């Protein structure tokens, strides 16, 4: 019996020691394994790992990625860091100890913030020659354009036909009694398409006039949701599968083809159409850049080339539902048929956006929140 007690008493020691060892070894294992990741060829001859950081919407085709990995004998690891704003902020915060070799997903609304933080290494990719100049917003090539898209209104054409109401023709129409309670748009303070639309209205109505327009929209029962998902899936008549009651939504010019790609009834034409009201479509350009202090700067540059080249560019439309910047990319038929590009999109100066974002949004929130 006393032996047993002795054993038991010793077990407290053992348990304590075991716990410490367990926790420590787990931590060490995790640290050493992860430390090996960006650190190049390890002793066992595992391939180098190139780390790409991005926002949550990043997507890429399996075969396209595998081709790059095979060509360069590397493994590409993708890290996603939240929405576009959160992802960029995390990259800026990790400036001294970079999380990745390169970062994809800075858009023109965040371009100034990204450049001011001085986190990207300039790289004049030879492929830039193929890309239209008006998309290259950073002359020093620290950030290179990869894709672009348009934030604009979508309408449920069947709903309007059934109701016998013509589609709105101008932004001002949205404030007319006929369109009362029909429009839903995400909050510019928390959603990037929401911000894009706010910027479009600032461009169209001027800094002195945009708040009056929003005041009128509010009087006309516009619905503001927190994010794009809620606006599109809960309230838009098409996106919600009939449960919502708003036939006008702020979305993207590529949403109609997505509606066909992800249809459940085998439809070949979208139920929603693009509405290019003058001054309402905002152009978003997304950029990639090699991070300063990258573990594999050369490989990161190869990946930038790869992202600008035709195979990846042709993969973009149906993976991320945006347009490729490289005109040599092939567009899927759905895009050419239903994802029209607006005639005169709003091109906003990135520096003005970063300088005024907070007070424009605050002023807007004050008008809308009362």
């Amino acid at each position, binding site marked *: 019996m006393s032996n047993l007690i002795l054993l038991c008493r010793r077990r407290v020691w053992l348990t304590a020691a075991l716990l410490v060892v367990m926790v420590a070894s787990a931590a060490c294992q995790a640290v050493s394994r992860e430390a090996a990741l960006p650190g190049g060829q390890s002793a066992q001859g595992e391939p180098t790992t190139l780390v790409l950081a991005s926002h949550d919407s990043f*997507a890429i085709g399996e075969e396209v990625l595998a081709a790059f990995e095979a060509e360069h004998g590397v493994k590409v690891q993708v890290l996603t860091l939240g929405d576009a704003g959160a992802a960029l902020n995390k990259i800026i915060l990790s400036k001294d100890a970079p999380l990745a070799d390169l970062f994809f997903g800075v858009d023109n609304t965040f371009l100034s913030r990204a450049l001011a933080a001085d986190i990207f290494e300039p790289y004049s990719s030879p492929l830039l020659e193929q890309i239209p100049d008006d998309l290259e917003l950073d002359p020093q090539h620290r950030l290179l354009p990869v894709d672009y898209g348009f934030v604009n209104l979508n309408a449920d054409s069947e709903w309007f036909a059934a109701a016998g109401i013509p589609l709105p023709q101008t932004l001002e129409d949205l404030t007319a009694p006929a369109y009362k309670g029909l429009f839903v748009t995400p909050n510019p303070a928390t959603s990037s398409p929401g911000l894009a639309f706010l910027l479009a209205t600032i461009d169209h109505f001027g800094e002195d006039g945009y708040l009056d327009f929003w005041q009128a929209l509010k009087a006309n029962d516009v619905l503001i949701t927190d994010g794009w998902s809620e606006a599109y899936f809960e309230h838009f008549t098409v996106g919600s599968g009939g449960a919502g009651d708003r036939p006008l939504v702020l979305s993207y010019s590529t949403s109609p083809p997505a509606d066909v790609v992800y249809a*459940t009834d085998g439809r070949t034409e979208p139920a929603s159409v693009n509405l290019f009201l003058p001054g309402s479509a905002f152009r978003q350009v997304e950029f990639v850049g090699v991070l300063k202090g990258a573990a594999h700067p050369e490989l990161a540059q190869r990946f930038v080339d790869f992202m600008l080249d035709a195979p990846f560019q042709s993969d973009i439309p149906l993976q991320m539902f945006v347009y490729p910047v490289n005109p040599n990319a092939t567009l899927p038929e759905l895009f050419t048929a239903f994802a029209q590009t607006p005639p005169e999109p709003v091109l906003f100066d990135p520096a003005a956006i970063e300088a005024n974002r907070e007070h424009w949004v605050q002023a807007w929130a004050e008008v809308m929140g009362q």
Partner: protein
Amino acid sequence: MRRLPILALYALPLIFLAVFYLYPLLAILRVGVGGDDFAAQAAAALTSAALWRLLWFTTWQAALSTALTVLAGLPLAFIFARFDFPGKRILHALLTIPFVMPTVVVAAAFMALIGRTGLLNSWLQRWLALAAPPIQLEQTIWLILIVHVFYNVAIIIRTVGGFWGNLNPHLNETAMALGAPPWQVWRTVTLPLLLPSILAASLLVFLFCFTSFGVVLILGGLRFATIEVEIYRQAVSYFNLPLAALLSIVQLALTFSVMIVYTRLQARVSRQLRGRRPARSQRPRNWRQWGLVIGALVVTAVGLLAPLLALAVRSFTLGDQGVTLLYYQALTENPRQSAFFAPPITAITNSLLYALATLAISLPLGVISVYMLAQPRSRTAAVLDPLLLLPLGTSAVTLGFGYIVAMGPLRTSPWLTPIAHALIALPFVVRTLLPARRALDQRLQMAAATLGAGAWQRWWTIDAPLLTRALAISAAFAFAISLGEFGATLLVARPDRPTMPMVIYQALGRPGLLNYGQALAMSTILMVVTALALLAIERFRLPGEEEF
């Protein structure tokens, strides 16, 4: 010398909190406070009426939400503690599901039920022939309060109900035999005994509502913002780290003062129970008891289960195909050959693995902490107690940025996920175990020690069986917290290791009915997996428990 192993054990929770909470938090606050214009911004913010409005709203909505949650939870806690009825175990597991559901999905479920075009409104409009929908809760404080109750009522049911089940019914019976009417028995016997557990559960609910983010943003519209929402705006939208740091500090200070009040109250109401003999729950004995049970369960079913059911039904009926498995099938297909495609089984496995790792971290640390806290007049305990709770009242955005700044190579490690989950789970484990640990009769331990039993043997044969019920409850919480990925957005995500909530968010990021349907289908799978996991945890019993 004999104290050394104990001290080593006791150091573990402190080390854990220091490394994974205090260090990253201080690192990011230093970045913010070290900003050029921190002093100027702080002075301006602290004197602005907007800040005080923000604090006031955050506090009263949390207090009101907590009060409502307690009111809604107590009757259910009572019924689960005292009565046996068919389907009890399953219902108990179902009631915890809301806890793990992503806010976006819950918001959609509530809209489907009580939104302007929701089920309830369309019925009422048809029956009463009304032109306008009679229930208009969208973007009102009522909806925020309702959803806070929906999310948190499981905390009251589980913690208070678990404690209630351990109360000795003899005290009540004695009081009644002495002629006390039921109300007086409740007021003078039951309530005082339950108070420590009610207070502990209320504190957890309060902290959750106090740092509420998604619910307020998604359901509150533009008119409502908590401190947490404002921290997010400042940190993410405007990248104003000095102001975000200031707000985080204010939030921490408030959390801290709430905890001081709590500790005072707790010390006043806490009492040791002697001669415990837990009651066995029994079938309702007469029509009044049956009426009570059935009535409460019907109300619960409508309030808590209807939104979940609405979600599940929509995952089979979205669009106009009638009943379809289309969305479940779509989850298993990868038509666009996306590199990060994960079939549901992979997402389920990943989620379960993270949850198991969270259990493995938080349960041992929780048990150790509880023994430390239960020591009379321990100075370490005085530090550990508030420290354990602080993560719940800390801004997730701030801590997430702290991880990025301070965690070095661990930042991208899959280990950080269960560690972050454990940080949130630990307060639950501790608050659930502590009342049970305090109620342990020390005389049993002393008797065993006199008879020569060693520390470990005493723990395993005396304490462990008596703590089993509380352990199972805390394990359920830890598991649920991990499955629901609390504060997941603060971590660096690895799309090559997708979890169930990650698949849901991915699907919600793209237009098209098929994506929405997949999000609903994966949410339904998440509900089922959660319910099954909780049922399994509740079945777990330590050997020897039956003897008590």
